[in-house]
């Protein structure tokens, strides 16, 4: 028994008004000493709940562990008393969370929050704990650890807070560290530092790591073993290299193939039809049935067990079960083609649609006794950009670099402080709100958050109608309704969606409504402000496909604001890299990615975890 953690048939259920939600429904895996096990999957598949079950922090009273065992160094911890569990938490198992901004107590000092765990579990005096805390802060590479002890969390950046979280988690040298999306809320360059730090400390202390993430590339570069979760179960379990070389479950393949990247330019991204079933009502047989590209007649009735198909590689799929395949019900129900269809946008004309010259947007910062404007926050500090007709310009950079402000300033949602925005010969910055009206329908915006981008009190029809009414008031009611129906159809929603409210739709569908809203006024230029960043990878692929196809069909120009470089590589013709309000480098996408010149661009590109290029186009459905 050399596994630090071994989970056997773990079941974590929740009582909800709609019945029992089986968030985790029979999950088994093991992590050896010093090993890193990654649990991947889309949101709502049960990853985080598995993590909380391991550390015995399932939110009570709604949630409870309904079955199975969690063995820590061979000892089942599910049956321990609360007191014994507390002795394990923070001591043998510790955890870091996704949101560093809210995970630290705002009213206690950093020192107090680290020393708390040390004095509790290691029986050290305050003085010794203080020494240990300083040492830990040094090891997570925070500057001036001694003075940091008396600092409060609000004075630290997100990356520094996550380092503090790691220091707290590792302060008692735990056997197992659970990292639940530890880098998701951080900027790309910080992400790399944090994950490298976890790796480094893991090697030093030979702590085992359970890494929870949705980022496949991160798994590829940092985990030894991977479990792919879908609908509360592990559907595929293998050493990382094996899994990425030879994914066997159709879901895994689909998931990998939906990741955007350079090699898929000109092709449609693979997508998964349908939606993840709710945890209260899974299908009887295989939980992927109904969505599977290789579904067979018996799939929806018989549940596939997770079996080892080749050494160390386990899959829960009937396709790899010789006995099942010999039965008559193995006749295929569906057989999607394996090749990705092309989706090429005719290469953009070189003619400029919109030119941004010396754009500056400043915000006043008020300070002192009378709140006078002391300084200006230079959100956008003199940028030049050119958006060409029918092509996509990506504006990339970390959070707070001013890219969203730039996008809003360009379409005059925020009036810029200085500079010119020339849209086909007219300078938008000189126009009044009234003078802008003719341009409003020609430039539109799509937002990030599919939840706050639609007014919950308006039907889809009313939402789309607003723009048509405002910008094309002459259109008769009937023509307007036809237009709405047509637009909805174009974004892949049926006309029955018209009378429904936003809360009746999934995140991806809402994003489609957001696109329809912009599309309905026949724009030529659309700002996509992190339009796919909040979506799961398979949904993201659907929306990227949609954006690309409408660009092809209507000759649209996009300004694509994002921090996701994979998306940029896939969709953008040109890239502008923004840093602290300025553009540090711009040029054709391929050139920037293959030969970055600016130091910041280099750092940015290096920081992104990458899957081996040879694997990227190799994945085939079983």
């Amino acid at each position: 028994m050399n596994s630090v953690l071994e989970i056997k048939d773990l079941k974590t259920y929740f009582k909800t008004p709609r019945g029992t939600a089986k968030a985790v429904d029979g999950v088994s895996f093991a992590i050896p000493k010093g090993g890193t096990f990654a649990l991947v999957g889309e949101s709502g598949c049960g990853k985080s709940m598995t993590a909380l079950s391991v550390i015995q922090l399932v939110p009570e009273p709604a949630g409870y562990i309904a079955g199975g065992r969690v063995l820590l160094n061979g000892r089942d911890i599910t049956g321990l008393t609360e007191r014994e569990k507390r002795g394990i938490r923070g001591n043998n198992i510790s955890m870091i969370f996704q949101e560093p901004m809210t995970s630290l107590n705002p009213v206690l000092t950093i020192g107090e929050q680290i020393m708390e765990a040390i004095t509790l579990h290691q029986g050290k005096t305050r003085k010794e704990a203080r020494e240990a805390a300083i040492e830990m802060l040094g090891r997570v590479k925070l500057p001036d650890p001694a003075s940091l002890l008396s600092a409060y969390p609000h004075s630290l950046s997100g990356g520094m807070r996550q380092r503090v979280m790691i220091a707290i988690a590792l302060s008692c040298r735990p056997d197992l560290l659970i990292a639940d999306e530890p880098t998701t809320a951080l900027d790309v360059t910080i992400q790399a530092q944090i994950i490298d730090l976890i790796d480094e400390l893991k090697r030093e202390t030979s702590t085992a790591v359970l890494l929870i993430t949705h980022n496949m590339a991160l798994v590829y570069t940092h985990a030894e073993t991977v479990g792919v979760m879908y609908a509360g179960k592990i559907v595929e379990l293998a050493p990382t290299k094996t899994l990425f070389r030879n994914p066997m479950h159709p879901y895994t393949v689909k998931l990998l193939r939906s990741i955007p990247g350079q090699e898929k330019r000109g092709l449609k991204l693979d997508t998964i039809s349908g939606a993840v079933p709710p945890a209260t009502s899974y299908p009887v047989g295989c939980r992927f049935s109904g969505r599977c590209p290789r579904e067979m007649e018996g799939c929806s009735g018989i549940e596939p067990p997770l079996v080892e198909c080749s050494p160390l590689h386990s899959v829960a799929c009937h396709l790899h079960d010789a006995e099942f395949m010999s039965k008559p019900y193995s006749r295929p129900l569906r057989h999607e083609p394996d090749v990705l269809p092309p989706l090429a946008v005719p290469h953009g004309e070189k003619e400029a649609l919109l030119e941004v010259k010396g754009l500056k947007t400043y915000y006043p910062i008020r300070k002192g006794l009378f709140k006078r404007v002391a300084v200006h926050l230079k959100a956008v500090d003199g940028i030049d950009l050119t958006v060409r007709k029918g092509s996509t310009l990506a504006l990339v950079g970390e959070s707070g670099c001013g890219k969203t402000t730039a996008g809003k300033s360009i379409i005059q949602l925020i009036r810029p402080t200085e500079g010119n925005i020339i849209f086909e010969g007219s300078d938008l910055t000189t126009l009044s709100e009234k003078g802008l009206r003719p341009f409003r329908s020609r430039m539109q915006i799509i937002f990030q958050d599919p939840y706050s981008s639609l007014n919950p009190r308006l039907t889809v029809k009313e939402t789309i109608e607003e723009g048509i009414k405002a910008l094309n008031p002459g259109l008769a009611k009937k023509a307007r309704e036809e237009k709405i129906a047509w637009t909805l159809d174009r974004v892949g929603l049926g006309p029955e969606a018209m009378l429904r409210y936003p809360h009746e739709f999934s995140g991806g569908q809402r994003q489609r409504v957001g696109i329809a809203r912009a599309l309905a006024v026949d724009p030529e230029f659309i700002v996509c402000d992190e339009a796919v960043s909040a979506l799961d990878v398979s949904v993201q692929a659907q929306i990227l496909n949609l954006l690309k196809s409408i660009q092809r069909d209507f000759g649209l120009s996009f300004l694509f604001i994002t921090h996701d470089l994979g998306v940029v590589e896939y969709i953008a013709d040109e890239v502008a890299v923004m840093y602290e309000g300025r553009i540090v480098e711009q040029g054709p996408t391929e050139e920037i990615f293959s030969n970055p010149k600016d130091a910041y661009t280099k750092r940015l590109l290096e920081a992104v975890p990458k899957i081996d290029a040879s694997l990227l186009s190799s994945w085939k459905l079983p």
Partner: protein
Amino acid sequence: MTGLENPPLGRYEQDKTMPVILATDLITFFLVGAIVYFIIASRKDGSLKAVRRELARNRLAVVCMAFLAFYVAVALLDSVRYRDAVIGDDGVPALSEGGSVIYSPEALSLLDRALSGMRTRTEKTYSAPFATHSYAKESMEGAGVTIVRGYPPLKYPRTHWLGTDRVGNDVLFIALKGVRTGVVIGAGTTLVIIPFAIFFGVIAGFYGGAIDDIVQYIYTTLSSIPGVLLIVAFMLLFGSSGYQGGLVSDVHLVWRAFVLNDRLFWLCVILGITSWTDLCRLIRGETLKLRELEYVQASKAFGAGRLSIIYRHIVPNVMHLVLITFVLQFSGLVLAEAILSYIGIGVGPETGSWGNMINTARLELSREPVVWWNLLAAFGAMFALVLPANIFGDAVRDALDPRLRYR
């Protein structure tokens, strides 16, 4: 004061009655209208439908709703009133010198008429619930010419479920007459608050800058004055004139049948002025959040005007706060009315109200023997309105805004 003055309905033609509408009656009508509107709207509007479904699932909330519906129904019945023509000896309506019909000053409501038995069967003085004899000893004529002291029998034994008060009125009837006042105070005050709070809250949050500063200044200044004293000051200044409840005299009437200067109405207005600031603050905060939301930005990208954005996107999305505040404040206002009436600055002495009941009965506990049913009836009637309102308010809030749960 017998049944003669109050003949059964339907014996007279229409022009032999004259409707009287108090300003506060409009509040009841408006409340009932708003409830009906909500029920109809919730059939169509998706998010309201969800709220309704959530409420229907909550069994306790449904029970409370039934209680509240009963109270509102009583208030509504007590808000439809009309005066009867005075009938001369010849059986036809008496005419004034100018030839117009003379109406009785008593504007009896549907409730008064429906419960006319309870209203008119009065005793001499106190009697305990379901009693057959009076509560106080009296000198009575015994056999022959002897005078004995004893408990005289009641005129209407075993009919007074909650006993009678000092002047012999049925306590149950008086408690029911307090319903309308409670409901009107709870609903009317909020109706006064809503337009102020929405208007100031939304413009402060949406426009920001100097407008925000001014609105914040106004509500900080207003809320810095102790509420109860502001009410006292206002009521001392305005409350003493006007219709105090009871008989309707012609001086109160405007446009023939309308009583505008209604003390209860002023009380609602004044309570509203002193308590709109909380909701205003909430709405301002919510608007600050909403105006940055992406759907508002999208609307701006269509070149939509500010008023259109406020109308389409801001106001509908602060309405849940309004509804939550309405149901949660309701109970507090009912309790406040009793206290204000008790210290003599609430409703007029002629208006049926639980505060007035308590005020007249406050010394009864020190009587020997104790008269308890008056106080208990008043407190019980109030409790039976306030408790369901509190529970229902919580349920509505949970259904509308799960974020605020537990609050």
